C-alpha cells in the first residue's frame, strides 16, 4: 500500500489545505508590499512566515509530485492576481528542485525538508523579475502610483539587488524552514497534527 506512488484524493486535498493557508499568509504580507520599503522585504517575510505551514505540509508529503503541484498552483494564483507570467516559470523550477531535494532524503529527512523549503522559496524571485528584465518598462507601468513611489522603489531596487533578492529568498527560506521545524516540535506535533 505504501509503495503505491500514485497521488490519491487525500494527497491532492492536502495540497489544497496547506496551499490555502500559505496563500492567505502570502496575500496578507503582499498587502504590505504597497509601501515601498516593504517591497524588498517581501523576499524576507514571505519565506520566513510561510515556512510554518510549509513545514507542516512536508510532514504529509510521502509521494513525488505534491510539492510540484503546490508550486504550480502558487504560480497560477500569481498569474490571476496580476503578477504576470514570470512567477509561473520560477515556480516550476523551484518546485522541481524542492521536489528532488526531499525525494533524495526519502521524504523523511528533516534537514532536507528545511533545504527543500529554501529552494522552494526561490519562486518568490519571479515576482521581482519584470523589475530587472525590463527596468524602465516596469516603472512606466507603475507611473500612476506616483513619481514618489517610483523614485522610492528605484532607489531601493538597483540592478545589483537581483542576486541579493534571490539569495535572500533562499536564506530566509532556510530560516523559515527552521522556524517551521521549531513550531512543529513546539506545537503541531504535540497537538497531534504532524
Amino acid at each position, binding site marked *: 500500500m505504501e509503495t503505491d506512488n500514485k497521488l490519491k*484524493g487525500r494527497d491532492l486535498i492536502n495540497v489544497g489545505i496547506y496551499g490555502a493557508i500559505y496563500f492567505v499568509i502570502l496575500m496578507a504580507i503582499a498587502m504590505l508590499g504597497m509601501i515601498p520599503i516593504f517591497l524588498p522585504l517581501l523576499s524576507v517575510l514571505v519565506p520566513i512566515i510561510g515556512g510554518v505551514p510549509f513545514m507542516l505540509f512536508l510532514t504529509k508529503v510521502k509521494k513525488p509530485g505534491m510539492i510540484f503541484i503546490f508550486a504550480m498552483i502558487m504560480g497560477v494564483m500569481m498569474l490571476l492576481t496580476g503578477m504576470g507570467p514570470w512567477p509561473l516559470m520560477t515556480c516550476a523550477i523551484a518546485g522541481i528542485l524542492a521536489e528532488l531535494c526531499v525525494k533524495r532524503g526519502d521524504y523523511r529527512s528533516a534537514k532536507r525538508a528545511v533545504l527543500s523549503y529554501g529552494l522552494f522559496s526561490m519562486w518568490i524571485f519571479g515576482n521581482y523579475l519584470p523589475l530587472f528584465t525590463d527596468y524602465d518598462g516596469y516603472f512606466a507601468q507603475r507611473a500612476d502610483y506616483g513619481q514618489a513611489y517610483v523614485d522610492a522603489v528605484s532607489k531601493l531596487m538597483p540592478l545589483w539587488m537581483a542576486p541579493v533578492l534571490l539569495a535572500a529568498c533562499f536564506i530566509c527560506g532556510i530560516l523559515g524552514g527552521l522556524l517551521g521545524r521549531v513550531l512543529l516540535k513546539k506545537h503541531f506535533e*504535540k*497537538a*497531534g*497534527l504532524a
Partner: protein
Amino acid sequence: MVELRKVSFRYGSEDAQSNTENSLTDIDLTVQSGEFVLLTGPSGCGKTTVLRLINGLIPHFYPGTVEGDVFIDGESANKRELYETALSVGTVFQNPHSQFYNVDTTGELAFGCENRGLSEKEIYSRIDDTVCRFHIEKLMDRNIFRLSDGEKQKIACASVDVAGTDIILLDEPSANLDHEATLALRELIQCWRTQGKTIIAAEHRIAWLWELIDRVVILRNGRIVRELSGKEKNVLKQDELTALGLRSLHIEGPDDIDLPVITEADDPIILRDFYLRYSDADHPVVDIKTLRLASRRITAITGPNGAGKTSFLNCLCGLEKRCRGTIEYRGKRYDRKARQKLCFMVMQDAGNQLFTESVLEEVLISMPGNKSDDKKQAIRILRKLDLDSFRDRHPQSLSGGQKQRLAIACALASGREILLLDEPTSGLDHAHMMETAALLKQLEEMGTTILVITHDSELIRACCSRKLSFSVK
C-alpha cells in the same frame, strides 16, 4: 449486509513504535440488510471508529493497525479503495460546517453522483426525487454558508440520499442541532427506514432515535459490552442507561422547561440599548431596549438556530464594535470596552481561544499582573477543574470538552465576574455533561454570573435556574 469479524484496531502509523492502546478490541458485529442498529456508549468508546472501518476511512484515511476482517455485502472491505466503498456506503458526519465540498446546495447534492460519473439526466432525476421526498425545496439553489446548522445537516443527509447507497452511516448527526432540527432529522431517517436502507448510527443522544431502531449495541473502552434486541431495549430502565453513560430517553425541548428570566429576589444586571444589524440583513439580529438578567445565577439562553443568541453574547462581552449598549452591574455602568474586562466567553469552538503550548502556560497568561505566587494559584485552579493531570499537555491536543474546561480555567484565572458559554455540552456524553453542570454550579456558588446558550434540556434541568428565550424575528 455489514459484517465485522474479530476486529481490533489501533490508531497510529504502522512503522511508528506506538504503544497506544487498542481503540477497538475483538469486535464481532453483523448488521443485516434493512436493519437499523444504534452504536452507543460514552465518549471515546470506539463507536466512531467502528463506522470508520465500515466506510473505509480506516485504513485509507486514518492510518493504523487493523486485525480481523470487515465485509460489506460479502466482500472484504480493507482492500477496496475509498471510491469503491463509496458506491455502497454513505456517511453523514457530526460537524455541519466541515462536511460540504461545494458552496451551493444543488452542487452538493450532485457531488457523489458526479464523482462516479453518472449521466446528467440520471443525476437530475435523482435530485428531484430526493428533494420531493425530503421536502427541502426551500433549501435548493442556496449558498450553504448561509444555512443554519440544522439545514446544513439536512443537506448532508440529502446528499447521501441522492448517492443512493444501500448502507447509510450516521456519526453523531444531531450533536450540533437544536430540538426542532433534531426532530426534522428523525423524519428523514424514518424515510430511509421505509425504503429498507441499512442504517448504522453512532450517538449518545439516543432519545430521538430510540423508537426507530431495531437493535442497540453498547460499547465501552473499545469492546462491545451489551447488545439489546428490539424487545429487550424497551425494558431498559433510565438508571441502567445512566450507568452505561447514556443520555436520557426522555424527549424534551428546552421550551418545555419553565423557568423565570429573573425573580424579585435577584440582584439584577440591567442591559440598555443593545442593537445590532448586519449590513446584509433586513432585520436587526439583536434588538433590546432594556433587559434585566439575574446576576450570580445560571441563566440558560435558548431558542432556535439563527435567532441571534451568539450575536447577543458577542455584544454583551463587548466584542461587537457596532453594538453600543451599556450594562449596569452592581451599581456601576460598563460600556463596550469596560465589558471586555468584565466578561469572559467560552466559544463554541474553544480551540480558537487557546494559544500557548501547555495547559499550565495557558492559565498563566490569563493572570492579571505578574505575581510570584501565580503558578501556585494556576495549579490550584487546574486542580479545581480536574485538569491538573494535563498540566503539560498541548491545549490543542485536548478533547473538545477539555478545551472548554481549560477556557473556563482561564476565565477563573483572569478573575472575570461574568461568564458566558456558547453550547458547552454539544456532543458530550452524559457523564461529561454532568461534570460541566457541576462545575457551573460550583462557579455559581462562588458568585459568578453565568449565561449559557444551550439546546441541551438535560443541562438546563441539571444546573440552570433562570431562562431567557430567543425567537426568530
